[in-house]
C-alpha cells in the first residue's frame, strides 16, 4: 500500500492528462485533416485541404486581425485601469476595505450576465445609458449595429469583467514593495510620478510580465463575450478566431475546418507567447 500510493497517484495523473488534455488536443489536430460533414457519416481524409481553404479565405485573416485588435485594446485598457485602481486602493482612506471588495465584484459574474446587463443598459428605448445620453443631448450610439461601435462594445464589456484581475494581483504586488525604497526616492527629491516609474514599476516588473501574459492568452482565446454580444457581427466586424472556429464547426457543420482554425489559432498564440518570452523573460522559476 505504502509503496504503491505515490505511483498510483501519478498513474491517475498520467491517465487524466492523456484523457482530458493530450487526447482531445491530438484528436482535434487529426480532425483538421479530415472532411467531416456530419458526426454520423464516415470522415474522409482531406490532407491539408482544410488548411488551404481556411488560409485562402479572407475570413481567417479578418478574424485574426479582429482578434489582435480586440485582445490588444482590451489588455491595454485592463492593465492601465487595473494599475490605476490598484494605486488608488493602496492609499489609506475611509472605506478602503469595502471598496477593495466592490472593485473585485465584476470578476465574479458569469459573462452572460455582464453581456445581458450591458444590453439592458444600452437598450434602444428603455436603457439607462440611452436615456442619460438623450438627457444630455448626445446623439444615440448604435452599440451593435456599426462596425466600430460593436468592437467598442465587446471591448468595454471585457475590460469591465477582467480589470479586477489586474487590480487585485497588482495591488498584492504593491504591498510587497519595501517602503524604504519610497523613502529613499523621496529623500532624493522624486515626486509621485517619478516614484511610480522609478520605484513601483521596476519592482513590479516580474508580476506585470505575468499579468500581461495571462491576460493576453485569455483575451485571445475568449469566445463568449463576442459570441453573446454580437455573434461576430455586423458582417464579420467583430468575428475573431474562436467565433470563426465555432461557426465553422457548429453552424456550418464543417468540423474539419473548425478544428483547423482552432489548431492554427493555437499555433499563432504559441508563437506570440514564445516571442513575448524572448522580449520579457520571466526571471526565476514560477
Amino acid at each position, binding site marked *: *500500500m*505504502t509503496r504503491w500510493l505515490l*505511483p498510483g*497517484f*501519478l498513474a491517475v*495523473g*498520467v491517465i*487524466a492528462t492523456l484523457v*482530458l488534455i493530450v487526447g*482531445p*488536443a491530438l*484528436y*482535434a489536430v487529426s*480532425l483538421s485533416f479530415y472532411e467531416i460533414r456530419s*458526426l454520423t457519416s464516415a470522415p474522409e481524409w482531406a490532407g491539408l485541404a482544410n488548411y488551404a481553404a481556411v488560409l485562402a479565405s479572407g475570413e481567417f485573416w479578418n478574424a485574426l486581425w479582429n482578434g489582435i485588435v480586440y485582445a490588444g485594446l482590451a489588455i491595454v485598457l485592463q492593465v492601465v485601469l487595473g494599475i490605476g485602481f490598484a494605486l*488608488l486602493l493602496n*492609499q*489609506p*482612506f475611509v*472605506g*478602503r476595505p469595502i*471598496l477593495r*471588495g*466592490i*472593485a*473585485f*465584484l*465584476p470578476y*465574479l*459574474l*458569469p459573462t*452572460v*450576465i*455582464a453581456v*445581458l*446587463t*450591458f444590453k*439592458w443598459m444600452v437598450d434602444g428605448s428603455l436603457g*439607462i445609458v440611452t436615456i442619460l445620453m438623450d438627457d444630455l443631448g448626445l446623439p444615440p450610439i448604435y452599440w451593435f449595429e456599426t462596425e466600430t461601435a460593436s468592437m467598442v462594445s465587446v471591448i468595454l464589456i471585457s475590460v*469591465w469583467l477582467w480589470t479586477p484581475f489586474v487590480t*487585485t494581483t497588482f495591488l498584492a504586488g504593491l504591498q510587497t514593495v519595501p*517602503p524604504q525604497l*519610497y523613502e529613499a526616492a523621496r529623500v532624493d527629491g522624486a515626486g509621485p510620478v517619478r516614484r511610480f516609474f522609478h520605484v513601483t514599476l521596476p519592482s513590479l516588473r516580474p508580476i506585470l510580465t*505575468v499579468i500581461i501574459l495571462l491576460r493576453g*492568452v485569455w483575451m485571445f*482565446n*475568449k*469566445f*463568449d463575450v463576442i459570441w*453573446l454580444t454580437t455573434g461576430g457581427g455586423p458582417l464579420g466586424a467583430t468575428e475573431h478566431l*474562436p467565433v470563426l*472556429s*465555432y461557426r465553422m464547426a457548429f453552424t456550418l457543420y464543417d*468540423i474539419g475546418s*473548425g*478544428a483547423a482554425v482552432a489548431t492554427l*489559432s*493555437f499555433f499563432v*498564440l504559441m508563437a506570440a507567447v514564445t516571442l513575448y518570452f524572448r522580449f520579457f523573460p520571466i526571471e526565476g522559476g*514560477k
Partner: protein
Amino acid sequence: MTAQSGSRPLPARIAIYVAALILAVYSAFPIYWMVASSLRPTQEMLVDPTLLPRSLTLDYYYSLLSQTDYPRQFLNSLIVALTTVALTMVLSIMIAYGVTRQRIRGKQMIIAGMLYAYMFPPLLLAIPLYAMFTSVGLDGTLLSLVISHLTITMPLGVWFLWGFFKTMPFELEEAAMVDGCTRLGAFLRVVLPLSVPGLVTVAIFAFLLSWTDYTFALVMITSDANKTVPLGLASMIGAFDLRWGDVMAGSTLIAMPLFAAFVMLSRYFVQGLTAGAVKG
C-alpha cells in the same frame, strides 16, 4: 507611500475620495442596476427610471420560478458545478501530491501538459470532446459538461496545489510515519489538514469556472432539459418578447451565491488570484 497619510494636503485627499467614488460607481453600478431592474414594476420601467425604484415587486422572480425552466436550469447548474468541484478536488489532490513527492521521469510531462492546457483555445478542446461524447453516446448529458469543465479546472487545481505541497516540508510526513502512520495515513492526517486553505481556494475557483461557464455548455448541451442557467439566460436574448425584468431576476439569482461566497471567503479569492489559480 502609505506611511504619512495624516500629513496629506487637502486637495490630494479630495482627489482620492473622488477617484474612489468613480471606482465604486464603475464597478458596482451595473450590478446595482441589474438588481434594481429585477425589483422594479414594469409600468415604472416604461417611464424615465429613477435611481431608486419607487416601489418594489417580486413579480419577475415569481414568474421566473413558476412559469419558466429556470428552476430546472438552476438545479442543472448546481449539479454540474458540485460534481465538477468534487472530481477536481480528488484528481488534483492525487496528481499534485504524486508529482510533488515522487521522483520519476515523465512527471515534467504532466506539469507541461497542465501548462499547455492553459493556452488551449476552448474550441480546440470543445470540438474533439463533442465528437468523442457523440461517439460514445454521452452527448448532451450533464456528465459530458462536467468532463469538459474538468479539462480547465483540473490543470488549475494541479498547478495550484503543486505550488502548495512543494512548500510543505517532507519531515512532517516522515515524523508521522516514524510514529506509525502509513504513507496514506500521513497524507490524510498530516498533509491534507495543513492544506485546507489551498483546497478551499481550488474548490472556489473550480465552482466559479463551472458555475459561470457558457462556452462548453453551448457546445455540449443540446436539450432544453439539460440547459444550465448561463445557457438558459442566453437563449432569452433572442426571444421574441424580451422580458428584461425576468432576465435581470434570473441574472441576480445566479450572481447571488457568488457574491455571498465572496463576502465570506474573500481572502481565498484574492489568494487564488495572486497564486495563479484563476479563471480566464
